[in-house]
């Protein structure tokens, strides 16, 4: 779980072109200046990294109970999906 958290924060920081140290569980994705395609690229990067499918639809505030408001939301969702889908840190 700790590894997932570190890895997710790294992926988010990379997509937001910022230092990993500047992204915490409380960081809101909206404050990272992620533009329209950045969120979709972020999800793709997470799916590739953890070998999971993330059910995300840009037209909904929340898809299958998952929302991506804060970095912590992303960590929790990825950890849950890794457990469910037997994904792995690639």
């Amino acid at each position, binding site marked *: 779980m700790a590894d997932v958290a570190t890895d997710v924060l790294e992926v988010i920081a990379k997509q937001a072109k910022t230092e990993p140290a500047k992204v915490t569980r409380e960081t809101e994705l909206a404050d990272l200046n992620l*533009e*329209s*395609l950045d969120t*979709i690229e972020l*999800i*793709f990067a997470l799916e590739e990294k953890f070998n999971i*499918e993330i059910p*995300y*639809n*840009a*037209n*909904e505030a929340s898809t299958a109970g998952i929302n991506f408001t804060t970095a912590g939301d992303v960590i929790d969702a990825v950890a849950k999906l890794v457990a469910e889908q037997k994904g792995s840190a690639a």
Partner: protein
Amino acid sequence: MNRVVITGLGVCSPLGKNAAEFSATLKAGKSAIGPISIIETEGLITKIGAQVLDFDPNAYFESNKLPLYDRCTQFALVAAREAIAQSGLDFRNGLGARSATIIGSGVGGQGTQDENYQRLYLQGAKRCHPLTIPKLMINAPCCHITMEHGITGPSFVVASACSSANHAIGVAFQMVRAGMVEVAVTGGTEAVFTFGTIRGWEALRVMAPDTCRPFSLGRKGMVLGEGAAVMVIESRERALARGATIVAEILGFGTTSDASDIVMPALDGAAGAIAACLEDAKLAPEAVDYVNAHGTGTAANDITETKALHKVFGAHAKKLAVSSTKSMHGHTLGAAGAIELAATIAGMHGGFIPPTANYAEADPQCDLDYVPNEARSGAINVAISNSFAFGGHNAVVAVRRA
């Protein structure tokens, strides 16, 4: 400047493989969105689409011609035959040299590309079929129309993603209006149901898993469609002189570019194209009865398009009937403008306003009259048809009942 009229219309779409069938299905408000069955869906997340079902190419084409015709070319040829037959024109008596063929397509022969690359990459094939390139090239539907009908004037394909067909019709309209050609065959075609294309669309995270509900609360995105619509256009003077039946008049064309985001729509670009179209058509906003909306069913488009209509039409916006027929024939991408202009004309002729199917509940941010779920009887005299594409290409066409 010539006034420009439509004298032939052909459709090969999920709602019908000819214009009459298309019109009847539209009027019934019946959506063609359903389970994808023309390709294997294993490995796809998106299992729904609006397909041209029971389409047997052998019923339309000789077997020696088919190896050159991708599905998108087949649709275009079927629609062009119907349009040209209705117009009563013969291009082989000298008219062909004074006629243009301008067709829109977003991506061309995806089925051919997918099939050949699968053979190479997956099945270890040593070579491609020699007709691979001429079959998949995006201009193939256009050149086969010229060959089948002997149209030897200017011909090319316009590609601006989801605005391709409206741009094609707009360019053809301007050519006839300016007198560069006497007649133009124009429209759009698309056939994108391949594993690779659908996976690509899924990755954009804009595909609805249930259905397409434009402007409705609870909408979850777009649903892909396929098909073609083609029309024959000529100067009004020419059509009257030869006693042709006029289907509708094209009044104007407006087009702008957002020059901002590659996928997100922009209010100024969309509103600018609508306003430019009205200006070109010399139409007061109050003269417009109906808008065939771009209405993709995505969160972003439908709100932006509603705002754009408010911005251009002011108080009259609330009096407009606005519908997205994509709720029935899906998003046919490069064919969308042509199929949607055909839907507008079908309504004009049938005395009905095409509905927005699958409409569930009012969205406070989409506050216009979207003609929910059932066609409404009523006359459409003047209409506009909107297309707003990825890449920020906006194109709007205005038509009047003949």
